[in-house]
């Protein structure tokens, strides 16, 4: 339908997870980039346009929630999907309140993540049209 690849930025300090998910997303036709810290993510966003950010909540340094706040204010059409450790329903809730598109529990199924990326991208397009 759309021949433009969706640009996805994955942010996670667990390098194994980061590598595999970036590879698998690329194989599914996404333009995926991985970075391993909140700081690196914000730096990347300063100079590149991104459609959807997959963001780990718990990271050393600037944590996911703070990164989310910054993304929401600086790049309001960029959609954020949070990755949260199991059981942290509060973190997920807080994320939604702060403007995340959605959140997934770790370990997440690739199919679930892809579905959410597509929905989030759809929302971004709607927002940009307005």
């Amino acid at each position, binding site marked *: 339908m759309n021949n433009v690849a969706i640009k996805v930025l994955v942010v996670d300090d667990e390098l194994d997870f980061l590598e595999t998910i970036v590879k698998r997303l690329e194989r599914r036709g996404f333009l995926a980039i991985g970075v391993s810290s909140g700081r690196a993510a914000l730096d990347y966003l300063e100079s590149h346009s991104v459609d959807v950010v997959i963001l780990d909540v718990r990271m050393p340094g600037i944590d996911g929630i703070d990164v989310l706040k910054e993304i929401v204010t600086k790049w309001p059409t960029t959609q954020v999907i949070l990755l949260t450790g*199991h*059981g942290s*329903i509060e973190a*997920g*809730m807080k994320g*939604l*309140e*702060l*403007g*995340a*598109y*959605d959140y997934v*529990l770790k370990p997440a199924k690739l199919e679930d993540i892809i579905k959410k990326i597509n*929905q989030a991208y*759809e*929302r971004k397009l*709607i*927002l940009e049209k*307005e």
Partner: protein
Amino acid sequence: MNENSYLKRNRQISQKSHLKNYRNLELPPSFLFVWIGVSSTLLAILGSSCFHSGISIVFIFGLLISNLLSLYGIYSSLRFLQEQQRQINEHLAQSHKLSALGEIVTGIAHEINNPLAIIYQEVQWIQHCLSSDNPDSINEIKDSIQEVSRQVQRCRDVTHKLLEFARKRKPVTQPANLNEIIEEMVKLVEFTTVTSSPEETIKIERFYDENLPLIALDVPLIKQVILNLLINAVQAMEGKGGVIKVTTRYDGKNSVEFSVIDTGCGIPPENIDKIFLPFFTTKAPGQGTGLGLSLSYTIVHSMGGTIEVESSIGKGSQFTVRLPLKTKG
């Protein structure tokens, strides 16, 4: 639960009590017309029967005029009463709003005051540490500063939520499968409520309408509503276990609804009018901020929908959200 719609009953009670203040309603000047009309008709009838003069044109004409007069009188009296009723309603709405405002302000003060008190204490402690020569005091100061920044964060969260509340974001809707979204939230809650002891187990039963069409939803917003209702239902069990029923239903025409029904503690009638107010909570600090339902209310209404509650103490509560298929832009 149907036998007790506290909401309605409560409304009636408060309306009645307000009406008492309006006992001495003045009669409108137009009532004079009614009086003249009725009495002249009576006089005409009395006169014609006393003097056996038969029915003359003049008599019929007089009767007509007097009846028209009284009709007009009745009409304008009704208008007058209507106007009074309108004023009473306005007054009622105003006083509701005022007490709501009071409630909100108290809530904010409470939410901000607690962290402020802690900050004050910590700062005093820092001052104390600074003036002592104890080599350990630098660690104490570090601890205190950490606590202060935690509490500042707490305050910021409150103000953030307030701003969010005031901002009334316009929903961004996209076609979505409500059953799927609800199931996702239910799974999440189920996941976090697993316990080993059977008497604390919360069972979640699903009754999804398979004919539910796709509807235009703001996905992150509706998820907040569903989560809030589910979390409240879990908290209403007060650690005792119970059953939460989640249902969806399509009316076959232009709206869908979903309900979250719990077997928890229920809501006392005196609280039912307040639960949708921001900062109204009966929970301990840390358990609830009292913003869940008010946020949900705002979200649902921004999508052109409604949210209703029925509750019975000791038996449980039912929250029902109704959404139009097409959201009004």
